């Protein structure tokens, strides 16, 4: 990462240019699974953002203490700790969101975005920059989930955020709420982003995917090689 990057550019990078979901294709499981409604996408995005910001801050603070060899397990423990906190908070105050996200709330632990940012950004940069990076990436993730959720909810149940829009005019296509619709909408959205950025988006290499423990199993690292 460039040392001279302004605070503002760190914050906005994750939003569009390096959007973790739409450009870097990280965290695809929750993106597909929870976006049956815009509100669920928003909830998932916010939960992941809180974890991302907190873990980025703590990892950045501890970057000189954690021995290099065991850094990945250390990161996982830190991330899992914050995920547990978020899980308990969501369960207590937003039971509807908790029910909708289900298993994917604890699975934030294994979301590649969070581990990826810890490995790539937080352990090299200052606390403030890491926090901003967490906010930016979190907003990018939330934005992508919101777009996916909005499209699927509009077509699949004819409403957005539960407000009826087209349900009385056109019969909702339930298939968009089910698994095939998720894959389909995600494919279209990524194709659209490809078209708009026309290959100018950041290369996966700059994300440092090769350093990630799951690099070889993960779609984007392989694509980066090709």
């Amino acid at each position: 990462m460039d040392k001279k990057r302004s605070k503002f550019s760190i914050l906005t990078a994750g939003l569009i240019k390096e959007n973790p979901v739409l450009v870097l294709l990280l965290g695809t499981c929750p993106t597909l699974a929870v976006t049956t409604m815009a509100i669920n996408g928003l909830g998932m995005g916010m939960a992941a953002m809180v974890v991302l910001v907190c873990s980025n801050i703590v990892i950045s603070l501890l970057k000189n203490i954690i021995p290099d060899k065991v850094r990945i397990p250390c990161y996982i423990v830190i991330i899992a700790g914050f995920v547990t906190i978020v899980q308990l908070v969501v369960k207590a105050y937003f039971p509807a969101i908790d029910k909708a996200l289900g298993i994917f709330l604890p699975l934030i632990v294994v979301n590649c975005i969070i581990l990826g940012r810890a490995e790539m950004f937080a352990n090299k940069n200052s606390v403030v920059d890491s926090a901003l990076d967490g906010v930016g990436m979190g907003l990018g993730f939330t934005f992508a989930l919101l777009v996916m959720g909005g499209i699927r909810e509009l077509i699949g149940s004819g409403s957005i955020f539960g407000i009826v829009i087209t349900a009385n005019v056109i019969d909702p296509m339930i298939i968009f709420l089910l698994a095939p619709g998720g894959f389909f909408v995600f494919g279209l959205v990524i194709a659209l982003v490809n078209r708009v950025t026309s290959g100018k988006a950041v290369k996966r290499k700059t994300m440092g995917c090769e350093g990630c423990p799951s690099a070889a199993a993960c779609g984007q690292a392989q694509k980066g090689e090709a």
Partner: protein
Amino acid sequence: MKEIMVILVSAILVDNFVLSKFLGICPFLGVSKKLDSAVGMSLAVIFVMALATAVTWPIYDSVLVPNGLEYLNTIVFILVIAALVQLVEIVLKKYVPALHRSLGVYLPLITTNCAVLGVTLLNIEEGYNLAHSLINSVGAGVGFLLAMVLFAGVRSRMESAKITKSFDGIPITLIAASIVSLAFMGFSGVVEGIFKV
């Protein structure tokens, strides 16, 4: 016996981990390019899923529950799985080098695979006992294998197809996944039909 078959068929076909539960999408998109790597990865996943369940379920039942620490399951499970995978790798390398050569490369990747953590957490959530949890885990793994193998076939056909630039790569792969998942939706109701539950 009937119960076992119900769990197994549901896990493999109806609630397929990849195609209807969206768990393990990363390896599904990443490693399904070639048939042999798809099979290798899936076998490693089946193995680790079964092993992880065999270890995490007793820990949950005999350590976390009696002490009122159920809320720590996420953090405990991910640590156990990470340690377990490391251990398996070391043991395989030392004693079964042939198996290590074929599965070894996939093992470290599985630690951060959401399907493995997912299955252990789902077993607890569903309230399965140890035997049912193991069956569910193996079924989920076999379902993963099935999806990977089928999809590797679809992708090899796509290699020779001419695809619009914007759709090339991941987008067309996702559209193809959507169609495969549509086919799997045909299995809904199969369990009720066969086993009359």
